[in-house]
């Protein structure tokens, strides 16, 4: 569509990371396993997947725990490698089995146990599949390989990749030859970079932001303490009836603002898409379910996270009324310009 995609890929000058081959091999094995395990017929559902990556100690587990206890009305399934590290309030636990902890709020935490393909397939095959899946990637992994294994299941839609960086150790690790390749892989794969433990680095904030920008230019960068990011930023939209859809930022960090639009009659696809592409960069996420004039029978899920956007037809029944459309925009409150947003998306 654009001039850049007419180009051939640029030659990469990045030196070979010795562990990358191992991950690529693991990715291939995962896809081969998916070829065996995932049924040939296309699943009638489309589950949004968010991958949370980040080096060891970057705060992934904290974020995951927070999501599980405040899912914002969603039934989230979290996939983790290390079951023991997840620390869930016992009062919230409804049941616990060998590979699953079920919570009273409808969420679940599931062990990957070395077999992501089967862990995902089990979620897809559930009688009531979750509204969203959050995958906590291993601290040493390139999330691209993991994403491709997860996406080998046609019922999975990639919503976003988050990279968490531990502000305290980041400046050192991004320079260290041993950890730099992993950090670069994680940052460059990310749609959103989350600076965790930012409360501990007051005076070095801009320096760290600069390091992130030079390692992976153009990423949306958020700050968080104790995993305090609204679930609506971490998670995408699901078109299933049980899913709530909106942005509840009450009780959270006040640095985020959001706005919602709805339409009761079929929307003009071109006009909407044009408007969405012009949204200012301080919009972190845009997500919507649309009924378009040119295709009233189907529903379309729109997602924008960071620089990446997608528009996909979904076969699942919409949670909103026939012919209705709805859009949520989330951004930084500091730079939020409601007038500008209203001008673009009235």
């Amino acid at each position: 569509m654009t001039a850049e995609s007419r180009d051939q890929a640029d030659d990469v000058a990045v030196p070979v990371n010795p562990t990358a081959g191992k991950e690529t091999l693991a990715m291939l094995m995962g896809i081969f396993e998916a070829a065996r395990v995932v049924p040939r017929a296309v699943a009638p559902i489309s589950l949004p997947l968010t991958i949370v990556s980040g080096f060891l100690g970057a705060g992934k587990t904290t974020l995951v725990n927070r999501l599980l206890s405040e899912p914002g009305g969603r039934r989230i399934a979290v996939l983790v490698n290390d079951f023991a590290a997840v620390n869930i309030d016992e009062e919230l636990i409804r049941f616990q089995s060998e590979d699953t902890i079920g919570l009273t709020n409808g969420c679940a935490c599931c062990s990957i146990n070395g077999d992501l393909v089967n862990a995902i397939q089990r979620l897809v095959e559930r009688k009531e599949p979750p509204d969203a899946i959050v995958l906590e990637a291993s601290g040493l992994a390139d999330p691209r390989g993991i994403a491709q294994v997860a996406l080998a299941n046609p019922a999975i839609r990639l919503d976003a990749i988050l990279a968490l960086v531990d502000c305290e150790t980041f400046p050192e690790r991004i320079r260290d030859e041993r950890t730099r390749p992993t950090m670069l892989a994680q940052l460059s794969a990310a749609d959103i970079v989350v600076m965790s433990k930012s409360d501990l680095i007051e005076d070095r904030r801009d320096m760290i932001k600069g390091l992130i920008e030079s390692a992976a230019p153009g990423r949306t960068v958020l700050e968080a303490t104790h995993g305090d990011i609204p679930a609506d930023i971490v998670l995408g939209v699901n078109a299933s009836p049980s899913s709530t859809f909106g942005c509840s930022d009450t009780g959270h960090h006040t640095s985020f603002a959001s706005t919602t639009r709805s339409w009761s009659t079929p929307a003009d696809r071109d006009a909407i898409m044009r408007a969405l592409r012009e949204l200012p960069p301080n919009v972190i996420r845009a997500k919507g379910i649309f009924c378009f004039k040119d295709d009233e029978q189907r529903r379309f899920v729109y997602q924008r996270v960071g620089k990446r956007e997608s528009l996909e037809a979904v076969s699942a029944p919409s949670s909103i009324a026939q012919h209705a459309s709805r859009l949520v925009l989330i951004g930084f409150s500091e730079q939020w310009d409601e007038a500008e947003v209203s001008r673009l998306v009235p």
Partner: protein
Amino acid sequence: MGDITVYLARKVVTMDPGRPFAQCVAVRDGRVLSTGTIETMQPWLKRYPYKIDDTFADKVILPGFIDPHTHFAFSAGYLAMHYIGPIDSPGPHGINKGLPTRAEVLAKLREAAKTDADPSAPLIAWGLDPASQGGHLHRDELDAISLDRPMWVISYAPHFIYLNSAALERAKVPDNTNVHGVMRYPDGRLNGQFVELEAGRLALGAMREAIAERGGVDGLKRMGDIARKAGVTTTAEMIFGKGNFENEWALHAKVVPDESFPLRMGLVSLELALYADHGSKGADFLLDAMKRSGDKLFFHGVKFLSDGSFPAMSLRLNFPGYLDGSNGLRNDVPWDELHERMLPYWKAGIQIHCHANGDEAVDASLNALAKLQKAQPQFDHRFTLEHYCISTPDQARRLKALGGAASVNNYFVHYRSQLHAEEGFGPDRSEAVARLGSLEREGVIFALHSDYSLVLVPLHPLTAAWVAVNRIALDGKTVLAPGERIGVERALRAITIDAAYVLGAEQRLGSLEPGKFADFAVLEADPFEVDPVDLKDINIWGTVLGGKPQPA
């Protein structure tokens, strides 16, 4: 009991040394009732209704061939995969050699494109480092290697994927696609490059589908057809339960017992997987699983591994090691713990199959067997060394002394000996690959197997017998280690009755004797009559399984 069917033949080779030849074989309820002539069978035929079937009147009936070590259900992707990275890298078949230059990458791709006889089989290569190996690949360059075979090349880190036209067709990428990362030539034509996630999903999704078509139910059936055409009526999956025990069982239980599937299959469970799932209770679990066995699909034994592969040059050698001074890989269970991990199975009476390719690994496996014998002495345990590629005459003697058996991949004598004289194992060891003569002299019972399709040799027991009898190298003239040749009868035993013995199934399979399953290999010529150098060229009509003809 049902009616009797008498199959007339030009000759019946029973593989029962006491009554080796017959004119016909009578079958009742899927089993052999009698072999002999119409006259000798009269005591049966005058008492019960029968019919004469002359389909095989001009053919030769042998017991159905048994390949006791194959991998039918292994992922087709796994088999299609080739490494083309710049540095040495461990892979599923052992250490993959690095290819520093673009010329080597392209040569490897060309070689890989030629390996699978099926021109529609996918080819997956991974490890390309565009920075050090001369830049990105693209569609036209890959098309020059193969236009028909769909090709997927994946970079060393999973960022770039390159497809040829056949793979692009599978990916069904519309020419006007606007997915980010789907790259084009300056004239707008897709150049086969897929960069990063969204585009990668398109490319890899098509790859997954291409593999899925060749795996699972369809893949098993396809392998069954290959085996039937080679006269095989029984095989054994020698790495069962590697991924997920119950999933793999469900697949086999769906396919193998079905009447349309032309083979019996033994499932030999991988101890490593049992250990991961059940710890020290693996043997108990397996004993319980054995209750699921039926006539066509049965659990049998447990599989250990002690070293790497012959063709991938990762087997373990004693002095003087490899030509380049290196050595291969040991397997996951440390050698000094091997006997401890084996002991529960040994005590439970579950037959142990131990992969051992190189002579150092053979020593390690025999040491483990010696320790088992010390812990709890046993006769008739049938501890079997699998592959037994590089060995010494004294190891054959020790194997006999400890009461073990061998299942040998001897196809390598023909297909790879000369190659590895120059590369890897050196002349002496390469020449003496698969010492069947030594095993015979020491009185060790042995079978021949293909390991299909984990290694690039055919699944064709008559070819294995041909190699065993002739030991002719790939050059078509050199006879390799002539003292390790064996006779035609011994070679045929190794693909019938002795192969049944190695699978603990000699009471049911492997020869044509009353009570055994009526499983035949039906040949157009008599292997005892043809010139031994023509053994592998005997036409195979097909098989009979449980009395049911299955033409090739």
